[in-house]
């Protein structure tokens, strides 16, 4: 019963994506592509003011428009106890404003109509009587003693302070600094950015008035967690709530939170007994949904004159917007920022952070980032370069001197993270060799002699991803563990149901490859189901590079459970004891008699047709994975730029990215993820920023003002890899979707600063627009 040996397309194969078949034909199903019978359309009225009391709302003109079915206000929501909802950070957020508005773009009312055009028309006819209040647009303004109190509705909230949070050992760090020959410091602002997936957020809420069954089709990266939150918020029984995430047009963290539009659409469907569709337009997406970063950062690095790092001290002012709605583990107020010691061995570190309310949109999301590791990576990699120059060392040499060495793993950092594995020197050597670092430095010297501004920047980042172990990681109490179910059908094909969902990462392909690797059924024969809470196991969702570390592990483990049972059935078929059965995928054979064998497909058929007495029929299992630790991907990025001194325009001449994400499941997909991450890193370094004027008007509310890189600006990337498996992950993988967004901004900025260092330029806050670079050059040239 042996089959001819066919190569199994498991781990390490660049299998073409299963998702593509529908997407290249225009047959994907994105939220706005769905139509339900009798469906109504919702449009939201948003506040033009950043801070204002609401004296009254007159909906009569809107109600009178033909085709308008209902107008919903905060007052109506309050009657159902739904005017406010909990946030992911345990704060509250207004669903529809009742007392006052707290940021420009805040949801004030909603029109439900027979047609989307009519809904938008009617929104214009709602009259709101506002009284403008004083506005706070930065944490520095927020902490002033005379600042207007934004959250005056909260009992005991007399100012704008939200939290103070510390990590590390302050005293040990003070002692380290006392021994330093030199302290290098950096003050920089990591600006507010927006993930801006190309598809905006939206939903279709469909409440069956007869049964109470509530199905919400939603652009969600975390459907299971959202189902639970909906049950808690609305009081609806959780078994009657089904969240379905269809194809997602990108997410990057923007589609993690619960937005007021989802809640209003659901309430409207409940009240009206018809499905209600709500799709944001782009401006709504940019002005009201989850932003990222907005950190004012101070960092100090203590060193010996020989370059030995002694300690790191950093303090942060976090701009949280009007409602504290960060999507991150509940114990960690600034996420995993305490990974800030990066790739370096140093005995002491201390992080202090304070979060403030401002009159800006809420929802600090991990934009292609594992909970603030991006800000941390930026801080340490900028500090290290500046320190190198102040010590008169080459930045590569200073890094090499202080890297955590391979034999030091597992390595406990001074802030208590335990890095699983790493070979930082290996990744850096490959990056420097690829870019021709020594030759580039010589070329730079020649260019400088000719009066040209050339720069080389490096970032050797370490990320902390894959949250996480249940004792430390939860969101609203829900432990960050994830599940997988695998069912093999009689014909030897199967279905894998996973808790996380793809937003373009290719889960339908890579997770089938993990099954293929483990049990020997080809990936094309394993259907991967995801995104539907009625039909997949529980889990916390896809963000923070956690799918592979958690669900990837669950998939490997559930496959091994299936093999355990398959082995018993194989023993029955081969008429030997289980101990005498060997499995070399896809074949079970008798030890010492390899010709006596059955395949996994034979076993699958037998599981339903010829199984031993006393055994349950079928071949399936489920597994919930509790990671023993986070995983710690790393790498070195090296960038060469030329800066035009007359315009401030900087061009990326070379961009080399060496990533070590452990074992690569599908190299093609991994490289695609890195390309995308490097592009978003470039975007953040060069152009993306959501800004506000002093009245709290959002500047950056369209793609005309909020600049995203096109193919023209985007650099060409050269990729390299090293592979250091995670020792605790079942297949040695670490996750990769965000490494490049985390690591690359510092590399680009370091390159520009490197070019301008001889002029005396020490810092330019991102984004490094040509205007800002030009101003920095001019300021440096001006006599002191």
């Amino acid at each position: 019963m042996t089959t001819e040996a066919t190569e199994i397309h498991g781990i390490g194969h660049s299998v073409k994506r299963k998702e593509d078949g529908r997407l290249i034909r225009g047959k994907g199903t994105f939220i706005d592509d769905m139509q339900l019978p009798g469906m109504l359309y919702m449009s939201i009225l948003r506040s033009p003011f950043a801070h204002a009391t609401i004296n009254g709302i007159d909906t009569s003109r809107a109600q009178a428009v033909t085709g308008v079915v209902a107008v919903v206000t905060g007052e109506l929501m309050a009657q159902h106890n739904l005017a406010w909802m909990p946030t992911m950070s345990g704060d509250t957020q207004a669903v529809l404003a009742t007392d006052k508005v707290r940021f420009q773009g805040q949801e004030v009312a909603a029109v439900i109509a027979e047609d989307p055009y009519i809904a938008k028309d009617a929104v214009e006819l709602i009259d709101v009587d506002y009284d403008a209040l004083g506005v706070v647009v930065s944490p520095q303004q927020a902490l002033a003693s005379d600042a207007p109190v934004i959250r005056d509705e909260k009992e005991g909230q007399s100012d704008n302070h939200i939290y103070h949070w510390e990590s590390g050992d302050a005293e040990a760090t003070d002692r380290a600094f006392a021994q330093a020959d030199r302290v290098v410091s950096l003050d920089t602002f990591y600006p507010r950015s927006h993930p801006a997936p190309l598809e905006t957020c939206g939903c279709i809420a469909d409440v069956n008035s007869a049964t109470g069954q509530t199905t919400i089709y939603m652009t969600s990266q975390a459907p299971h967690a959202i189902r639970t939150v909906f049950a808690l918020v609305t009081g609806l029984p959780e078994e009657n709530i089904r969240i379905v995430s269809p194809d997602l047009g990108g997410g990057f963290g923007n589609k993690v939170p619960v937005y007021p539009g989802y809640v209003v659409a659901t309430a409207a469907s409940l009240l009206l007994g018809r499905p209600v569709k709500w799709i944001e337009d782009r401006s709504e997406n940019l002005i009201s949904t989850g932003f990222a970063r907005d950190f004012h950062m101070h960092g100090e690095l203590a060193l010996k004159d020989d370059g030995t790092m002694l300690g790191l001290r950093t303090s942060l002012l976090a701009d949280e917007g009007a409602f504290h709605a960060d999507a991150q583990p509940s114990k960690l107020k600034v996420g995993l920022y305490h990974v800030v010691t990066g790739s370096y061995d140093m005995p002491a570190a201390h992080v202090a952070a304070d979060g403030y309310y401002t009159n800006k949109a809420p929802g600090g999301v991990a934009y292609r980032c594992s909970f603030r590791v991006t800000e941390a990576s930026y801080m340490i990699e900028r500090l290290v370069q500046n320190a190198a120059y102040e010590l008169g060392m080459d930045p590569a040499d200073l890094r090499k001197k202080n890297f955590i060495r391979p034999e030091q793993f597992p390595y406990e950092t001074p802030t208590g993270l335990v890095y699983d594995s790493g070979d930082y020197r290996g990744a850096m050597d490959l990056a420097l060799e690829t870019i021709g670092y020594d030759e580039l430095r010589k070329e730079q010297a020649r260019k400088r002699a000719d009066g040209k501004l050339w720069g080389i920047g490096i970032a050797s980042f370490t990320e902390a991803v894959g949250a996480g172990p249940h004792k430390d990681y939860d969101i609203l109490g829900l432990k960050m563990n994830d599940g997988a179910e695998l069912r093999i059908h009689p014909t030897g094909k199967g279905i894998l149901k996973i808790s996380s969902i793809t937003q373009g990462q290719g889960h339908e392909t890579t997770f089938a490859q993990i099954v293929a690797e483990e049990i020997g059924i080809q990936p094309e024969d394993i259907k991967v189901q995801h995104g539907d809470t009625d039909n997949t196991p529980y889990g916390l969702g896809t963000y923070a590079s956690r799918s592979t570390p958690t669900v990837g592990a669950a998939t490997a483990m559930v496959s091994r459970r299936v093999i355990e049972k398959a082995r018993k059935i194989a023993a029955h078929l081969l008429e030997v004891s289980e101990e005498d059965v060997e499995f070399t995928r896809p074949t079970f054979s008798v030890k010492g008699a390899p010709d006596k064998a059955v395949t996994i497909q034979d076993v699958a058929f037998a599981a339903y047709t010829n199984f031993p007495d006393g055994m349950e029929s079928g071949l399936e299992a489920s597994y919930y994975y509790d990671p023993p630790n986070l995983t710690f991907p790393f790498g070195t990025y090296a960038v060469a730029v030329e800066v035009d001194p007359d315009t401030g325009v900087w061009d990326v001449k070379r961009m080399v990215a060496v990533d070590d994400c452990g074992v690569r499941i599908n190299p093609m997909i991994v490289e695609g993820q890195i390309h995308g991450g490097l592009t978003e890193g470039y975007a953040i370094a060069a152009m993306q920023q959501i800004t506000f004027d002093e009245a709290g008007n959002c500047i950056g509310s369209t793609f005309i003002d909020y600049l995203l890189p096109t193919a023209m600006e985007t650099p060409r990337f050269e990729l390299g890899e090293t592979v250091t498996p995670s020792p605790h992950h079942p297949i040695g993988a670490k996750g990769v979707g965000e490494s490049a967004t985390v690591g690359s901004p510092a590399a680009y900025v370091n390159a520009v600063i490197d070019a301008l260092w001889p002029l005396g330029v020490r810092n330019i806050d991102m984004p490094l627009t040509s205007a800002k670079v030009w101003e920095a050059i001019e300021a440096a040239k001006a006599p002191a």
Partner: protein
Amino acid sequence: MEISVTVNGGARTADVEPRMLLAHVIREEFGLTGTHVGCDTTSCGACTVLLDGSPVKSCTMFGVQADGREVTTVEGLADAAGLHPVQAAFQEEHGLQCGFCTPGMMLVGSALLERNPDPSDDDIRWAISGNLCRCTGYMNIVKAIQAAAKTKAEAAQAAAASA
């Protein structure tokens, strides 16, 4: 207003409000949801279709302006013989991730190859510069369009040889 449009080779009519955008006519009236809307400012290109063979952003045209003209959407790229070379190449070269920008990118790519059968990297980047992608970093999109150019050239050569 009553409009008649040739959509992917077939005659279609619709009764639309004069203000209805072409993107919405295509999606809502003709039921072709492969044309996506990603912004409201003609910036992202997800809604790109071919109008009489040339790429246009269908969110920036009224449906009535398409009256009497030919529209090609992503659903019209493949023919009875199978996928358009650009479609096949996008899959082969991993030119898409979430797939939201992909219809627009492929239509621009296919139009480019009609007028320039052998485009350089820069030619392609310029051609797709009105289309935003948030996932791929464009590298594999460029590769895919180049690969499609090669496929088309080889097919033309083979056809010439057998003629």
